[in-house]
């Protein structure tokens, strides 16, 4: 363990283990050396966000569970690949979840990709606020949601179809009966506006 261990920035379950006081970046280092206890704390800190993203993308609980499990096991097996200069551990984990969910969508494990859910919408809002950090993350979520809603509808739609739906630009172009070039333009413009409206939120997220 390096002397440069930083203090924890992310929240976690309370516990008497010194590991709980470590930051994600330090826990990832330990996990990459086979420390299952360190990995478990990473899991506990980020599993709800990971599952929420997987469920939002896949729309079915069983598939979302598989995607989340696959993502965390990939994390366990590839912890050495984390590069702190390219974003937070949380961003990295959610990137893995996103890739896994897209793979699941494109493998057609989810037959109805148009966000149908077999469990009802209300379940998506069942999470409870248990800590201040979780409450803060809900506020962040609301901010991002509001920023998305401020986008022109056609830009918001292509971003959501691409990111949460896992569709390629050509699939979206066909779906919306628009040229591929137009879809690409909407994606870039929408992301630029989203970045501008989010402002300093990224620092808080990371």
């Amino acid at each position: 363990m390096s002397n440069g261990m930083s203090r924890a920035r992310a929240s976690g379950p309370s516990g008497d283990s010194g590991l709980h006081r470590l930051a994600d970046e330090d826990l990832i280092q330990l996990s990459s050396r086979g420390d299952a206890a360190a990995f478990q704390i990473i899991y506990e800190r980020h599993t709800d966000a990971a599952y929420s993203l997987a469920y939002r993308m896949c729309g079915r609980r069983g598939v979302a569970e598989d995607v989340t499990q696959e993502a965390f096991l990939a994390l366990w097996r590839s912890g050495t690949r984390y590069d702190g200069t390219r974003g937070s551990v949380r961003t990295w984990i959610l990137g893995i979840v996103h890739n896994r969910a897209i793979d699941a969508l494109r493998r057609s494990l989810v037959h109805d990709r148009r966000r149908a859910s077999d469990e009802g919408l209300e379940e998506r809002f069942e999470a409870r606020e248990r800590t201040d950090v979780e409450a803060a993350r809900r506020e962040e979520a609301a901010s991002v949601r509001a920023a998305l809603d401020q986008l022109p509808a056609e830009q918001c739609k292509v971003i959501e179809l691409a990111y949460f739906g896992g569709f390629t630009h050509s699939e979206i172009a066909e779906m919306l009966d628009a040229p591929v070039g137009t879809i690409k333009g909407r994606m870039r413009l929408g992301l630029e506006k989203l970045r501008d409206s989010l402002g300093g939120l990224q620092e808080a997220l990371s």
Partner: protein
Amino acid sequence: MSSHSFTRAHAETAEALGAYALGALPDDEAERVQAHLRECDRCQGDLAALRLAVDALPSAAPPVDAPAELEPRVMSIVRAEAELLQAAGEKADRPSESRRRGLGALLSRPAFAAAAAGGLAVAAIVGFLVGGGVDTGGSVRTVQAHVTSVAGVVPGTTAALRVKDHRATLMVRDMPEPPAQRVYEVWVKHGRAAPVPAGTTFVVRSGDIPIAHSVNPGDQVLVTAEPKGGSLTPTSSPMIVARPA
């Protein structure tokens, strides 16, 4: 690259960069974008700016609690692999995880990737015990092992362990093909001791495999992918872990 071709690649990348950041490009187009990014600082900067927005998108997903049963399921696999890694020491290697997407998904599946590369075996499947034993009469005891496809390779793979008088049979169904130049090898792990070769290797995808080594209560039966002829210590993470009741 000529100035003209650079300019053309730059224009194509600039148009596609939003889709690239969102993961919405097909593989061939994404590869062209990546090639241009390697030589264009301006596009790298633009991409980094777009990623600030993309990285915030997961927060827009309505929060949902992960199922409580997921943690023990994941951790049972992680702890089993941690024990094996510890027992195997420096010789152990972790499975690689390719993240290629889209049409490349097939090649990204570990078994196929390892076969294509001729590289180290990759754990495509991790099994774990989820159910209790099922007495089938006499001294025979069968343990059902639920097998999960980590990379979505063969979702239908199943495994079970039948033990009678310390002799065990591993019953596998629909295993993926072993990677090129590899076989599946069975290990028996006594408590916290290093796993020992069970003297059994196999390549079949479905079948009942008698385990030459005795198996006692408390032992774990593991399966890893190893070079032909087998290994003296595991060189990859376990693909199946079963613990007799």
